[in-house]
């Protein structure tokens, strides 16, 4: 069965689809970690929030595309408040305190979601345009999943050119390389980082809405995927866009093919991959070189 090319192709698409979602989720986590040396464990909570806000928007307007456009903005706004109220004050704090503070936020987020939306599981319907299935090599494949794959590739390209070709991108790169010098020559690194943080939050919200029709929406949906996103960041190398993309691809494929070949060992293989990368390349597969270490 494994050697059947159509079977392989379908599983490859499944892997790409998961990789695409993981990329949307982990790129914000990774870049924030790289830029600010801040590991935001509540990133998954923003993802869950995106899914639930999307659910409410779909219920209110009956339009998936409106939810697709507005939920990330709403999540970015929540992220901005979070940055001003908590993150900015904690930048000088020890990593342990940062981890504990954002870890606490996971529970605050979980109970807030339960309080507002209740305990039941929900699902988003895919938009009409993408609701059906298409034939891929003679096999039926959900159209919506192809859209998820395409979206991941588009976001990757936009981010890549944004970082390489725009002024904001240049400031961000300079800030990652050497924050002190960049600030000293008059670049407003602080502001650039704030914008990048909000953008990362918006992408987490986007991942939540986009995941709605594929995965179901329930309190705690953030925790299981947060672990995968953290593995992506570690494997790819914190702070690196290409690293997040490569990490998401690897984790998506290992998770998918692991379940096909040896379901009992799927998660073991994933953690083994992470351990191997940590031993051989502690900075991740595509590490960011930093002037000040």
């Amino acid at each position, binding site marked *: 069965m494994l050697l059947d090319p159509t079977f392989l192709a379908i599983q490859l698409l499944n892997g790409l689809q998961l990789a695409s979602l993981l990329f949307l989720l982990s790129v914000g986590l990774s870049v924030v970690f790289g830029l600010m040396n801040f590991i935001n464990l509540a990133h998954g909570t923003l993802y869950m929030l995106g899914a639930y806000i999307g659910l409410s928007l779909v219920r209110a307007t009956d339009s998936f595309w409106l939810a697709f456009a507005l939920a990330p903005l709403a999540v970015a706004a929540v992220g901005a408040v979070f940055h001003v109220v908590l993150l900015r004050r904690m930048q000088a704090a020890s990593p342990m305190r940062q981890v504990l503070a954002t870890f606490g936020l996971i529970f605050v987020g979980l109970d807030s979601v*339960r309080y507002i939306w209740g305990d039941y599981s929900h699902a988003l319907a895919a938009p009409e345009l993408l609701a059906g299935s298409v034939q891929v090599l003679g096999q039926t494949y*959900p159209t919506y999943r192809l859209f998820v794959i395409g979206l991941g590739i588009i976001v990757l390209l936009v981010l890549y050119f944004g970082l390489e070709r725009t002024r904001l991108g240049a400031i961000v790169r300079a800030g990652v390389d050497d924050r002190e010098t960049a600030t000293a020559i008059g670049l407003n690194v602080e502001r650039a980082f704030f914008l990048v943080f909000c953008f990362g939050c918006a992408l987490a919200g986007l991942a939540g809405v986009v995941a709605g029709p594929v995965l179901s929406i329930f309190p705690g949906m953030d925790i299981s995927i947060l672990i995968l996103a953290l593995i992506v960041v570690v494997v790819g190398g914190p702070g690196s866009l290409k690293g997040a993309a490569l990490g998401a691809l690897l984790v998506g494929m290992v998770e998918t093919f692991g379940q096909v070949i040896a379901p009992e060992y799927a998660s073991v293989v994933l953690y083994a991959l992470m351990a191997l990368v940590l031993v051989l390349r502690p900075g991740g597969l595509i590490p960011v070189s930093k002037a000040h270490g």
Partner: protein
Amino acid sequence: MTQFARVTWNAVALLAALAVLAISPSRAEEPVKIGVVLPYSGVYASLGGEITQGLELGFETYGPEVAGRAFELITEDSEVKPNIGLSKVKKLVFQDKVDLLVGPVASNVANALRDFVHQQKVPLIIPNAGNNLLTGERCSRWVIRTSFSNAQITRGMGPWLVEKGYDSVYLIAADYAAGHQMMDAFRETYTASGGSIIGESFPALRGTKDFGPFLAQIKAAEPKAVFAFFAGGQAIQFVKQFDEFGLKDTIKLTGAGWLTSPLYVDAQGPAAAGILGILNYVPGIDNQENQAFQEAYQAKYGRVASEFAVQGYDTARLIVEALSQTGGDTSDKDAVVAAMHDVSFDGPRGPLTIDPATNNIVQDIHIFETSPGDDGMALNVIDTLSAMQDPPNGCTL
């Protein structure tokens, strides 16, 4: 002196009688305290809520008191954690001094409670947790189950599917005790009836975010039917993706009925049509008790009562009827359990009794098919397997 002694004795006897009289009326009015330990947070919070609502409606309908004693529910959150559940039950027994216990939802918590209630001899009535062992090898006189055993739910589906011509299946279930017990019971009767199992998958209970990889495997194996066990978020995903990957056109989807629970069948949309399920309750069961129950529940809570709510409702009725047999007396726990063995009634699920050999419920099991109706997906009962009773499975009471 003898006269004086007699007078003294009479006075003492009189005082004692007065004391008894003074105590007993207040004793009769003391409410029956029921400790309810269910999950109100964590993954099964919604089930804890449903069962509690069913209990409340049940005590309202069949109470509100028995022999002059009202019912007082003291609820505690088990958080779906065995150690938390156990410490909450200890608090209910030692501090609140409850007469009876009701709970929990999850079998891992039930396992943790079993030894404690067995030693304390406090009756525990399980309104959900289905692990076979709780009324099998690890049964106890003090653990009574009003919900189901995992094997009881799926055992009947094997011969039934073979008879309908589905003679090859692929099994898929969440990888934990309940998933394996349900598949084991199905596998045994299915293969004994001549069906062949051409593949099995057990995806992780929590880790799995996507059934795509499994669905491609099932499709390649080309079974006539799939027999599945998933619940909650996983059930929504599985049913939707089964359709999206085009399996529905050629493979019949069947499973333990939680796959299309009324709690989320509408979230599954049109993908949920045409699925065969087997379960101890569906809202559409056609009898008077069920009609009355659904009407009362919908009037009180504003939504259709689920299979979890009915388990709470019947638990309340079992308690009320058993205590009316003991005249409201809960001091002799052994008599309370004996009374529960004597109770039998027609509930929304059909005729119910508690099997004195295992303490598990004896009930009808319903086979249903989903079809789109006027207000959402309807679960239509197409066959009923009456009075399903578990073999003792190593239980000696």
